């Protein structure tokens, strides 16, 4: 399969079951909503070192937010419910409670409810006030800029993390340009985030290492400087590889974002140095979800192979 002269490998991305949640952050204006949301989703690139993977999903207009102020929605994912709950509370306390004018609301319905401001309310030292409005409980916590308003809980849902694709090209600037084009297109897809810096990761990993204490190490098969000495996956004309990792609420969300991302990257074409699109997997044994590049690009986004 080729798009615009770019070869699409017949392979798949391997992804995992995760727990996810959505939180709506509002503030006096978008600038401060972004300050709050950027802090809340900062240092959340990979569950390996950060506990959660988080990112800004999209901007919200004033008629989409509960308090009619400008805001953004964020998505947060973890490997288990306990970590997700713990990280959400910590980040709410350090990033949203602290941010001038910011407020937080539930962004997703679910029977599984996890604490948003439920425990944060004790910061009010007895002056916190509960308000039950249209069946939802909110907390008003007196703070130095006025009152911090937060919903008591938000929903937690089953989600998927680790959808991905690799962009292989002739030079580092060309591959980065293609990844930027992909991210710009993927940011328009709802219910997904690309948690790495700018949405792109350059340090893909493999399982295991020569050092006994390391459980993951650099993905040497895709490292262009090692082409001659390792069992490489790269052709001789590939000088740079970057990866885009996607977490999403459903298989279809991730598949759709992969489709628009790959198409956007390929739109630059082989003329612009983009040579191949591949995907990261562990042989299919570790992850519960397989995103097959050819199927997705043929428009089959459900995860069920066409008959």
């Amino acid at each position: 399969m080729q798009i615009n002269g770019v070869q699409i490998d017949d392979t798949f991305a391997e992804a995992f079951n995760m727990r996810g949640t959505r939180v709506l952050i509002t503030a006096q204006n978008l600038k401060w909503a972004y300050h709050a949301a950027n802090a809340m989703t900062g240092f959340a690139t990979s569950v390996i070192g950060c506990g959660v993977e988080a990112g800004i999903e999209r901007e919200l207009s004033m008629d989409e937010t509960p308090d009619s102020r400008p805001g953004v929605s964020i998505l947060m994912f973890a490997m288990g419910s306990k970590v997700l709950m713990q990280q959400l509370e910590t980040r709410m306390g350090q990033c949203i409670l602290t941010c001038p004018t910011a407020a937080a609301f539930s962004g997703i319905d679910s029977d599984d409810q996890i604490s948003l401001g439920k425990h944060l309310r004790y910061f009010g030292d007895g002056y916190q006030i509960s308000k039950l409005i249209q069946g939802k409980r909110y907390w008003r916590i007196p703070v130095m800029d006025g009152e911090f308003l937060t919903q008591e809980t938000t929903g937690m849902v089953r989600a998927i993390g680790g959808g991905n694709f690799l962009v292989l090209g002739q030079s580092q600037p060309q591959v980065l340009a293609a990844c930027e084009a992909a991210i710009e297109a993927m940011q328009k897809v709802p219910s997904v985030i690309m948690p790495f810096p700018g949405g792109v990761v350059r340090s893909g990993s493999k399982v295991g290492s020569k050092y006994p204490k390391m459980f993951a190490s650099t993905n040497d098969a895709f490292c262009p400087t090692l082409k001659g000495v390792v069992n490489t996956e790269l052709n001789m004309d590939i000088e740079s590889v970057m990866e885009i990792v996607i977490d999403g609420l459903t298989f279809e969300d991730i598949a759709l974002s992969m489709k628009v991302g790959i198409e956007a990257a390929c739109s630059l074409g082989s003329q612009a140095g983009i040579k191949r699109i591949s995907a990261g997997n562990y042989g299919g044994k570790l992850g519960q979800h397989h995103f097959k590049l050819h199927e997705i690009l043929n428009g089959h986004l459900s995860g069920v192979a066409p008959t």
Partner: protein
Amino acid sequence: MNALTFTLKTAIQQAVDCRLLTPNALQGKTIAQIQALMLTKTQKVADFFDVVGEDVTHIVFKNTNAQLSYIGHQMNQGTITVEGDCGDFLGSQMQGGTIICKGNAGERLGDSMRRGTILVEGDVGEYCASSMKAGTIGVLGKTGARLGYGMKRGTLLLAHRPIDQATWIDCGIHSLPFLELLFKSFALLDTQFSQLNGIRVQRWMGDVSGLGKAEILVLSP
């Protein structure tokens, strides 16, 4: 479904206790059963009211006057709309739901209320929100003496500044974000409260003779 509507037949002179006529108390009852309920030792619902409609989650009182007391007492769900004036103890010991009074209400409005919302478009009598534990009361008209007497928690939202009281402490003028959510919920209701929008209020805390965690919010004009 049409709201269950009680229309007072004649202008009564003595107080009538309406605590049986709440959404939770009438759940599962037929019109005939409701009409047969005893409101006094000798008089039934049907002796006072014409009863029509079937939706017990929304109860409407029409042709009302200040003798109808204890409307919404211990109510815990649904909506009660009083199309005119009502008597004392409106929404007393209320546990949830919404009461809208389009006229004036009597004394001890929301007494010992724990949850829910009472919205009065007219004036209210003395001891409004006495011993209130939580919830929200809104009054667009005037309030009487000893407002929020012994009030522990909860919100009294007023359109007019009440007379100063020693046990209610002025905390200044503020913009409170939660009012945006509250007014959005009011906007769904058939009441003048649906027109509220400004979130700037003067805030008092009290009743400091007791717990003192309640608030009176007076809307800025």
